[in-house]
């Protein structure tokens, strides 16, 4: 049998700078975003699109993210790992990107909303904050 190094390997240059992949699965998601944005304006309806459930081919996700771009607001959330939340180039369209404590992506979605739900202070956390503040201001009363 031939040795591995005896096999001639020829590296082919890319035919052109243009990719042969047409990113066909990114465009329909952009249409979905457009319709959701119209519903948000007209009826205040919130839409979330889970990008992890999309049958994306190579380059589709990157193409979609570059179509959406990055806008004026970027928020970093530190809870059970990092989350990066940014308003895209299109106001009302947010990219919500969650990571776990070891830095692996655990969820990626597009939320069409005025402010993503997870950014708002949650009622349970507000109640907890009141208790903690009261304890801090009146340390004797809790003994």
């Amino acid at each position, binding site marked *: 049998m031939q040795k591995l190094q005896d096999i001639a390997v020829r590296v082919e240059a890319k035919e052109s700078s243009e990719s042969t992949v047409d990113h066909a699965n990114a465009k329909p998601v952009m249409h979905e975003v457009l319709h959701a944005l119209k519903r948000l304006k007209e009826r205040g309806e919130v839409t979330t699109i*889970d990008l*992890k459930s999309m049958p994306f*081919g190579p380059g589709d996700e990157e193409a979609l993210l570059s179509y959406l771009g990055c806008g004026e607001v970027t928020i970093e959330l530190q809870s059970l790992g990092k989350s990066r939340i940014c308003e895209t180039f299109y106001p009302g369209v947010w990219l919500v990107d*969650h990571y776990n404590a070891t830095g692996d992506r*655990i969820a990626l979605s597009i939320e069409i909303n005025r402010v993503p739900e*997870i950014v708002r202070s*949650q009622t*349970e956390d507000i109640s907890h904050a009141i208790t903690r503040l009261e304890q801090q201001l009146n340390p004797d009363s809790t003994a």
Partner: protein
Amino acid sequence: MAEELNPMAKTLGESLRQSGVSRRGFLKFCSATASMMALPPTMVSAVADSLEKAKRPSVIWLSFQECTGCTESLTRSHSPTVENLIFDYVSLDYHHTLQVASGNAAEAAREAAMHDNEGNYLVVVDGSIPLGNPGFSTIAGISNLQMLEETVAGAAAVVAVGSCAAFGGLPHAKPNPTGAVSVSEIVKDKPVVNVSGCPPIPTVITGVLAHFLTFGSLPELDSLGRPMVFFGKSIHDRCYRRPFYDKGLFAETFDDEGARKGWCLFRLGCKGPMTYNACATTKWNQGASWPVEAGHGCLGCSEPDFWDTGGFYNALSIPDSDVIRNAAYVAGAGVALGAAAGALNRRKQSKAASEHETVTIDDLDKRS
């Protein structure tokens, strides 16, 4: 057992709050869980409500005639990690490969889990069960059949993980020297969920366990006992190369122009049209890629008897490309053709299964 020592006594919401996790963190956890269970994002609040009250179920994992590939797959699950799974979702009380205890102590752990959680624990099985001779596969001197029957008796449900437990898998391949059978051929009086695949996708394993934890019930199943959310659509239906099939553009060899341009791999033996699994969306290795994206056709590993369906590189039926080119312009035609190809493939599969064709290296060379 003292209540504070019993992790089953606390709900998931309570234990997360106790470890200082905010509601925001909990909602993030729920978003990831809903995505993992392939639920629509609108279900996140329902998932949060249920998870708040959920208690971690006890899980007993039994390994029979298997290669440990299913456990390898599970331990490479990144969302959640296996640590998350063990600490947040389930109480994994018995697992040969992962547990610290061995010998009598290990068997005692299994018996204690069965006794303490009578009627409520989950049994996960990987590997098939040999009926030919009990001595073919034993654990602590107990035959696989006896251990399965004994452990399942007090279980709430059984999850058969991997194609061996679900359908017999490799040990069941002809001539099936050990008389291997699947879990569902033995367990008739308990719900059995088949999470097939060789190995199964890690998030599909954890997704089923998370579903049981979240809703206290098992997900909706297809005719082969597999969860519909993951196995409801064929690889072909969700393949990003599907538009090339519809246009009649196929790779004919693994290094031709079509292969380089990412055309359909049907003619190179891709079993996508008759295989139901979530690889095309969930992908592998943290969503990095999956077989078709890597340039190799689907082997059909989540279908029964996939070892006995002829060569992996045989196109099971060659579609008439002219017909496809014409039909591609008719809306929905691709779906019908895909279904027809699937039916043809199944017929050819059963023929190949009965003849059990032997393939040599020379044959493969000729074909590629």
